[in-house]
Each structure stands twice: as structure tokens, then as C-alpha cells.
């Protein structure tokens, strides 16, 4: 099966991270897995960008981190959405939907008929 691998559009990583944490705390590795599964393997988040993004969101106060035990019994750092993070997510989802709809509309437009054809 031909698989399409998509590069992440700039700025979308944050919203993806926020979204994947909405169901509960997760560690970094689980977040990559979740994004990959939900995008049906289309989006592959690189670790080199994921962790800095996580830390940045944490320092902005959108995420909270806590050490806990992973499902395979290892010490892992779990991230959780803060109230501020939830609010940010709602806002960004709205913006993204409007943006995507606008882009889709433009891309889906059919060629307008030229004036002479209208006659």
C-alpha cells in the first residue's frame, strides 16, 4: 500500500499535542503513537521537534508534567492539560477549522466561466 507521509505544517504540532492530551495524561512516546494512529499513519511527529514543543508548552503553563510509571513499568514523565491549555486548545481548534475550510474552498473552486462563454 502506498503510504503518504505528511510533513507537519508549522504551528500545528502544538495543537496536535494539546488535542492528544485531552483524554488524560500521556508521556511523550504515547503522544507520538497517538498522533500516528489517529492520522492513520499519515502524520509522523519527529521526536526532535516533539520534546522541545512539549517543554515549551509546559513552560508557557499550558501543560503540567508529573513523573509516574508507564504501562511497561518504567519511570516516565506524564503531561497533563491545564485549564489554560484547554482554553488554548478550544481557541486554536476554531482557528484551524476556519483556516482549513477557507483553504479547502479555494482549492476546491472550479474555474470561473470567462465572460465570452457566458454569452
Amino acid at each position: 500500500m502506498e503510504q503518504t507521509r505528511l510533513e507537519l505544517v508549522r504551528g500545528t504540532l502544538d495543537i496536535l499535542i494539546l488535542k492528544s492530551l485531552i483524554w488524560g495524561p500521556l508521556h511523550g512516546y504515547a503522544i507520538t503513537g497517538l498522533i500516528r494512529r489517529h492520522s492513520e499513519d499519515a502524520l509522523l511527529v519527529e521526536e526532535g521537534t516533539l520534546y522541545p514543543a512539549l517543554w515549551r508548552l509546559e513552560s508557557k503553563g499550558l501543560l503540567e508534567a508529573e513523573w509516574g510509571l508507564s504501562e511497561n513499568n518504567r519511570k516516565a514523565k506524564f503531561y497533563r492539560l491545564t485549564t489554560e491549555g484547554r482554553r488554548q486548545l478550544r481557541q486554536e481548534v476554531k482557528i484551524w477549522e476556519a483556516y482549513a475550510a477557507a483553504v479547502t474552498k479555494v482549492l476546491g473552486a472550479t474555474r470561473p466561466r470567462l465572460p465570452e462563454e457566458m454569452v
Partner: protein
Amino acid sequence: MRQAPLWRRYDRLSGSDPAADVKDELRFHLESKVDDLVAKGWRPKDARQEAERQFGDILAVQRMGERIGEHMDRRRHLTDYWADALQDLRFTLRTLRLDTGFAVVAILILALGIGANITVFSVVNTILLRPLQFPNPQQLVRIVEKDAKSNESGKTYTADATQDFQQQNRSFQSVSGYFAFTGPNNFKLSGNGQPMPATGMLVAEGFFETLGVAPAAGRLFRHEEFIHHAQTAALLSYPYWKSQFKGDRNIIGQTVDLSDKVDLNNKSVVVVGVLPETFDFGAVFSPGAKVDLFVPYIMDDFRGDGNDLALVGRLKPGISIAQAQNEADTLFPQFYFEHKHPEYGKGYTGKLTDLKQYVSGKLGRSLIVLWCAVCLILLIVCVNLSNLLLARAAARNREFAMRCALGARRSRILRQLLTESLVLAISGASPGPFSLGLSIRARSHSRCSTWYASTEQSWPGRWSSPSQPPFSSASHQLFACRAKTYRSLSKTEATEPARAAGMTASVPYS
């Protein structure tokens, strides 16, 4: 997510470690990936390589993580710190409110000690520490007679001797002086309504030019205003202009009625200018004096009056005081007291002192003694206060024991106590400047303590000089009561027939 086992809580017992956190987090990621790959059938060694390959530049990410982690750590510490400080502050205010007596006493003693210190320091600062507010102050020289034990007339020169020196010296750009025997409120300004007492200082030609003082408005005196029977001109000091004339610029060029309190001659005087705010005659030449206006010292009016000019000169560039002193040593002995009466004799001496040194030297030692005294007072205040705090701490033993039992560290309790001390110190220091500091202005410029000649520490003519306690001059500004006794002293002596020079102006109005 499962709860971490109990021992994990002691992982970072020695404080947080962002670098180790980042390492742990990334290692977990790699190990999970390896596990997944192995589960898919990779060999462990290959799986590890593949995981690392997929990750990319792990060191760069790690460094970035450390940086962000440290930043967050710092911020967290800061937030914690201020939250604790706020809590301490609230607690302090609460305990002080419960113990009002202690708080009031502590704050009062502190305010007293600090206020006294501020008062004295501001005088010390003006007189000893701050440079003179004139351009090239190192060129300014005060000229007095060499004989140190001589009185005020021994520190001044006659009009004739002054003119001789002005004409014959080669070391000075200019030499000028002021009338040393001016008393407070020697003039009456009668404008519209009640005549107001005013203090006028007679200054010789070129006085302000020598000092390098430029007028804030109007102009300085002109040559023709120093000639006998000239139309009298006056320069206003800045504060007097502000208070008496409400800073009205239109006053310049107008005439005001000014009567000399002695002969009560009403003179109409033209206000020619206003001196700048920075010029404070008293601060330089007679600490504590407040001079409202300046009028020309007309040499011809004073030729027969004896020594009455206090001289100040500005050296030519490149001439040292020693060089000028050499010249003065040859010149001064040749000067006659009065040209008209050579039989009065001749022979002055001249000692040149840097003006700043002269100003501070005069009061220096007494001021330092006063300062030390005030510092001792502050020390006593501190001892007192620490005793109070000690007694309080003993009474609060239980509170500390309780806090220790609840897990407070020594440093935490110490911080609490320091916060309390800080609150006390700040609340003790803030009324200081307001109550006592403000009184400096009132005191230092109060009229009753203004005795120009007295700051020269001696009296003119044949007056016996009243013996002065070591810091009487400085105390003039601080303790007006001293000035009062001083005045009664001078009153009794004023009945003596004295030399005409200073008396006319300074005596009867004490």
C-alpha cells in the same frame, strides 16, 4: 498513569535537577521505541540503532531541554520565593498588630535614631562631601589673615587693601568679597502693604563673576552700580524671588522700596536679576544663613570703616595656590589699612585656602564629632531594639517550637524573623525623613539662628569672642535654642562701643 512508588518521591531529594529530568525522559522514549521494535521482530542491537537513528540529534534536543528546564526551575523558585515572602509579610503584620505596644516603641526609637542621622548627614553632605556648585571650584580661594587666633576683623580687609590687592596681584583672574558683618533681617522691604524684613548681603564688584554664578533671570551688577551715589540695584536669591515675588519675571527692572533698618532711609532699589536656584550663599560662606537679596558693596562708602570685606578669589588657570601664596606673602605686608590715613600703619598678611577646604575645614571637626554622636545614638537605638527583639523572641519560644515540629527548617524561621525586622526597619525609617528630615530646611534656614559673623566663629572689632563649644556652629542649624542663648550673649556685648564696621547692620536686631 499509575502512581509512582513511594521511593521515587525521594529521587530529587537534593533539589530539582532539570538536566537529569531531560535525560530520563529521553531515555524512556528510546527504551519504549526499542521495546516496540523488538516486539515487531527486530534484534535488540539493531532496534537500538534504529531508534537512535529515528530520533536524530539527541544531544541537541537534550541541551535545549536542559535550557528550558533551568529556565522553568528558576521561575518556579522565584514564584515560590515571593509567595513565601508575601506569606511572611502577612504573618508579620498580623503579629505586630497583636503586639501594638512593641511595634509602636520599636518604630518610634528607630524613627528617632534614623531621623537624627538623616538630619546630620544632610548637613555633612552639603558642607563636607558635596563639591562646590561653581564651575572649576578648584580655582576658588578664600583669603584670610594668617593669624589664626584673630577675630572676624582679623579675617577681613579694608576697602583700600582689597583694591590694592586687586590691582597688584598677578595670580588671580579676579578677587572680590562680601561684607562680613551682615546680620539677619537688616533690611525692610516695603512693597504694597506690611513692610517685610529681609536679609541683604553686600557684595563687592565682581563677586558673582568670580564665583562663576550666572543669573537665572535678568543680569548681574554693572560697574556703574558700584560707584558712590549710584542708583541702588539688587539681585534676588531664587527662594526669595519664589516666595516673596511668586516667581514673577516682571519684577526684574522694577523698583522696590528697601529700607536699611539702621538709618531707616527709604531707598528705591531696582531689581536687576535673580540668582540661580543652585546658588546658596549660606551653604558656602556661612552655613545656616539665609540670604534674600544682594546689594552692591560700594567701596567709597566703607573706606573709613575698617576691616569688613571677606575676600574670595579665582586663580588664573595653571597657577597653584602655593604660587599665589608666595605672591600674597610679598604683597600683603605692603598694604596700608587706609590710604587717607597712612599713620594707621600697614602690614597685612594673607593666607590662601582652597574655598572648599575653607568651608569644610571651618566646621569639619565639629561636624564629624556631631556625626559620630548621632551615629552612637543610632547604635544605642540598635542595641535597644535588639534587646526588645530578644525579649520578644524569648516570649515566642513556643511558636518557634511549634513551627519546627510542623516541619519548618531553621532557615525558614530565620527568614520569617528577618522579614519582621525588615518591616520594623522600613516602618521606622519612613517617618524619619518625613518628620525630622523635613525639619532640616526649617532649621537650617530659620532666621533666628542666622548670624553671619558668628559662623566665622568670632566677633568683629574689639569684641571679646564668646567661647564656643566644639560644635556650636553646626548646632546652630540643628538646635535653634543654642542660637537663642547666643543671641542674648551678643546683645549684652553689643552695648560696648564697637567699631563701626559690622555693628551698624548686625547688632541691634538680634
